[in-house]
């Protein structure tokens, strides 16, 4: 078995297995915990909790006007590279073929390779900017740990190996593609146990916080 067959076969299978087991495990372990009982009288109706929860999911996605000057640039940077990542993952032909194959659906239209390459380069640059901000801002640096840096490294590794594969840079296409898929395998294994789980936690946690605050009658 060659490296590419290993990367897209057994290695991907193990990685996907760890991903599915880990994500379902961690989500259920959190969701099934008992929510602390509130003894105070509810300040609003159940319908309002839910609607405020949904509203807060959107409204807390951007800093309060009071904090825009201080954190707006950082958040804009984060949103930009997230959008870049989504564009590269979802709109590049070979990625579409991969995802459509996994999901068992037909392929959807993508973007030209040159556009994807440009987006990927910008995204990798922005991602480097995020790391710079993390290490140069005292507070962020203080609250950062191994998880943050390792998650950054493995995400960057996937981007770099993808760019190298696209440019056929450094080795034959099959070798570069195998290395790229192996880096994705690594990311899938790490996903449930690191900061990447924010993909599953971030929206529900905002909604639940909003609903709890609405029950208490707080202004959101």
């Amino acid at each position, binding site marked *: 078995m060659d490296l590419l067959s290993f990367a*897209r076969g057994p290695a991907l299978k193990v990685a996907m297995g760890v991903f*599915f087991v880990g994500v379902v495990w961690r989500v259920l372990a959190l969701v099934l915990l008992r929510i602390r009982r509130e003894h105070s009288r509810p300040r609003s109706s159940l319908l309002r909790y839910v609607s405020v929860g949904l509203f807060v999911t959107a409204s807390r996605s951007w800093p309060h006007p009071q904090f825009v000057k201080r954190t707006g640039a950082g958040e804009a940077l984060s949103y930009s590279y997230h959008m870049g990542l989504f564009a590269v993952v979802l709109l590049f032909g070979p990625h579409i073929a991969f995802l459509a194959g*996994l999901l068992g659906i037909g392929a959807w239209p993508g973007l030209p390779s040159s556009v994807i390459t440009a987006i990927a380069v910008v995204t990798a640059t922005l991602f480097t900017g995020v790391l710079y901000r993390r290490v140069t801002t005292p507070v962020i640096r203080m609250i950062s740990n191994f998880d943050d840096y390792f998650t950054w490294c493995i995400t960057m590794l996937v981007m770099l190996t993808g760019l190298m594969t696209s440019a056929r840079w450094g080795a034959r296409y099959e070798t570069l593609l195998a290395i790229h898929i192996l880096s994705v395998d690594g990311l899938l294994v790490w996903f449930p146990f690191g900061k990447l789980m924010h993909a599953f936690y971030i929206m529900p946690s905002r909604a639940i916080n909003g609903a709890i605050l609405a029950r208490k009658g707080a202004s959101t």
Partner: protein
Amino acid sequence: MKPADTVGETLRRHGVSRRGFVKFCTATVTAMALPPWLGAAMAAQLSGAPRPSVVYLSFQECTGCFESFIRSFSPTIESLIFDVISLDYDDTLMAAAGDAAESALSTAMKAHFGDYVLIVDGSIPTGASGACCTAGGRSAEATLREAAKGARVILAVGTCSSFGGIPFADPNPTNAWPVSAIVGDKPIINVSGCPPIPEVITGTLLQFVTTGRIPDLDEHLRPKAFFGNSIHDRCYRRPFFDAGKFAKTFDDEGARNGWCLYELGCKGPTTYNACATLKWNGGTSFPIESGHGCLGCSEPEFWDKGSFYEAQSTAKWGRAGESSRKPLAEFAGAAIAAGAVLGVASAGAGRLRQHKLEKE
């Protein structure tokens, strides 16, 4: 068989002028993508060189490689076997059969011991004590081992003799092996393909006969002159790949417009061969030009690398030729169920801790 004959003498006997001979050499050098100055060198070398003896052995194969070999346009098979080489044994082409044929083989091997070119076509089955492929009461393995002893070089023609090919594919019922797994002490040139391009077979043979040297080979022992670039890199549909324009089915608008076949499983990006440049049938066309993706037939284990119709960036879950979708659904379902069990157990333990903390 007149081994003392030189190529030049043979050509003169056939009425070929020197001018015609130089034109032939130049055309051959061009077809092999070799430097132009080699045309004159080839003419000088060939005209004075004795016609080398060639022994062609066929083992576990479909004769497709030989069919390809005899359809070479440049050089043609007639010019090759009448003017350039002395094809002393080939059980498909020769008129002799039975004892006469076997006798021709042993005579050629004895007469040119250490000097003949051995062409091998087909894999070598070693299962059932070699009984899966025998000729003249001898197994393919025994014949190959004996023939290899006196060979100057071995040309493994076709993917079966180069890498095992289809007989080698899982579950390999005859325990077949490529030539390189049987013979370890002779120079081997792999001319892979299922079948190989005719001009690649004859061109490689001619290059060796002309220069007397093994050509530059890649990591799979294939001549770089023909296997140096991927089909994708030389494909006329490559601009559509770069533009993100892919055919999604074999009869959609993209297919009709000649867009890239990557998403339909084309193996061009990982297949190294000259199909996109030399093409087939005298440069008429090649599979991608005819609307079908490359199968990757010149690469090792091409039969076991997943479906021919799934893109190379897709997961490879099932066995060769199987769709990956069903195995993934089964596999993901099992993984999610395992995760659910772990999640419920963790949540239960968490609730116990919550309860304990509340009591304290």
